[in-house]
Structure formats: structure tokens, C-alpha cells
């Protein structure tokens, strides 16, 4: 998943957590980068029509950005579910975050052929818990 898609996914999740525009501070925390880096990337995404940014208020996804964020979150759900259910990784959330940048959409689609993902994915992703609400984790987490 490329950096732009990781940002769009973070904006989507932050919007959901904050029930409004995503603040730069929350995005910086989620992405583990500086606020200056967030502002720079948000500026680029805005130029591409993927987000709307309002100073002091925050960032919102445009319709096109929302579509891409959905897709990125689906890819992330596939990685989490694959780690939890196929490789039986207990710390699947932490590890999914560590490898998501190396997993391309096409690779995730292939992994998706051997996991059971809900049709409502990614709407069943719980932003606070950072996982799908239906995911049965190894070790009964």
C-alpha cells in the first residue's frame, strides 16, 4: 500500500474517531510522523482532489478520496485477517501496521482468495479497536 493510500486510510479512520474532520495532530499520531509531514502530504492530496483541508478545522475526504480510502482499508483488513487466521499471529494489528506498506493491492487480492471476509467490509472495521469487529483472533483476543 503506497503512502498516499495509508494517509487516506488514516483520514478515514480519524474522521470516524473524531466524528468530524481529521485533525493534523491525530493524523500525525496515527501515522507516527511529524505534523509538518502531515501538512505537506495533505497539501499534495488536496491538489489531487482527494481531500479538503480547512485551516484550524481539519481534513475531510472528498468522494473520490473516500472511495480510495475504502479500498485501502479493505486491503488493510485483508492483511489483518490473513495474519490472524492463516498465519495465526496473535499481535496481528501491530504486525499488519508494520508490513502494510510492502503489500500491494494485487497481492492482497490474492491473499483474499483464501480468507473469509464479510461482504460489508470495510464498514465492519472498528476504528477504535483497530480491527474488524467480526475478526476471530488467535488466542481468543
Amino acid at each position, binding site marked *: 500500500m503506497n*503512502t498516499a493510500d*495509508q494517509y487516506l486510510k*488514516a483520514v478515514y479512520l480519524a474522521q470516524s474517531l473524531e466524528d468530524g474532520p481529521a485533525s493534523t495532530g491525530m493524523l500525525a499520531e*496515527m*501515522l*507516527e*510522523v511529524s505534523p509538518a509531514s502531515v501538512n505537506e502530504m495533505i497539501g499534495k492530496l488536496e491538489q489531487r482532489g482527494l481531500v479538503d483541508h480547512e485551516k484550524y478545522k481539519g481534513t475531510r475526504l472528498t468522494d473520490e478520496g473516500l472511495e480510495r480510502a475504502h479500498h485501502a482499508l479493505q486491503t488493510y483488513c485483508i492483511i489483518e485477517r*490473513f*495474519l490472524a487466521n*492463516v*498465519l495465526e*499471529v496473535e499481535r496481528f494489528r501491530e*504486525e499488519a*501496521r*508494520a*508490513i*502494510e*506498506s*510492502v*503489500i*500491494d493491492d*494485487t*497481492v492482497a*487480492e*490474492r*491473499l483474499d*482468495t*483464501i*480468507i*473469509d471476509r464479510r461482504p460489508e467490509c470495510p464498514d465492519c472495521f472498528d476504528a477504535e479497536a483497530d480491527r474488524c469487529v467480526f475478526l476471530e483472533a488467535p488466542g481468543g483476543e
Partner: protein
Amino acid sequence: MSLGQRVSTDQQLTRLLQIAVVLEEVVESRAAHHLDSLPESERAEVDEEVEELLAEAGVESADHRERLEALIEELDAETVPYDEINDLVAARYGPPADTDGVLYDQLCSEETAYKFYDDLIEAIEASEVSFGVDRERVLRTLREIREEEREGAEEVTELMDRRA
């Protein structure tokens, strides 16, 4: 969240190599299922070239798997046994409509594997850390396998062109 492609821990490397093994197992299993899924009438029509290509793909994936497993073993980890992945493939397998569909699926497999190895190599090259397994050996193995995946994709494309 980890921004930018970079592999900097044994754990990351292990998981990504385990994913590579599963991708190879999926290729091997799907190639076997494709042959079995064709109805008798169509199976007779499948020319030798297609049958040979699928059989070779299975053998090549098994070989890649073994080379990756050797690296994973040195990292003190295990891989998911082929039978388990084969069962997961079987549970959700939908056969392509015809031989062209089989070849298209095979091409997707080869291209996906190539893309994965390409990204993985780039992510390892982006960091300078040492791993629990010799870094150069990992890169050499992955580059060799990537090259074979590229050749595999070319073979499928050529066969598809000849049949068109």
C-alpha cells in the same frame, strides 16, 4: 503505522517471507485445481502446452517454497503447511469458465508474485540492518525467484498470444 517501504526487523522479514510461501502455495494449489476443474470434454481439448505449463508452474512454486522455507527456518520460524493452504483454496475456489480463463488466472498469479518479490526486495534494500539470516543470501534468493516469476509471466503471455 509504518510509512514507506522498508524492512528493518527479523519479524517483518519473517512475516513477509511467510506470505511469499503462502502465495507460492496458492499458485501451486490453483494450478492443480484448474486442471481438475475442467469438465472431461474440455480437459480432452486442453492441449499439451497448457497442461505442461500448469504442471511446470506447480513444480516451480514448490521449488520456490523450499528455498524460502530454508530462509524462514534460519529465522526460527515456521511456514503454513501446503495442505492447509490447499484446503483454504479449495473452500473458496471458483473454476474459470474456460481454458483462457485458466491461463489468465495463471498470468495473474505470476504477475502478483513478481510484484510481491519486487516490492520485498526494494523494501529490504531500503534498510541497512542485519537480519538473523544473511542479508545478501536473502536478496540473492529473492532476486532469482523474481526473475523466474518474470519468465513465468512471459511464458503464459506467449502461450495466450499463440492461442489468440
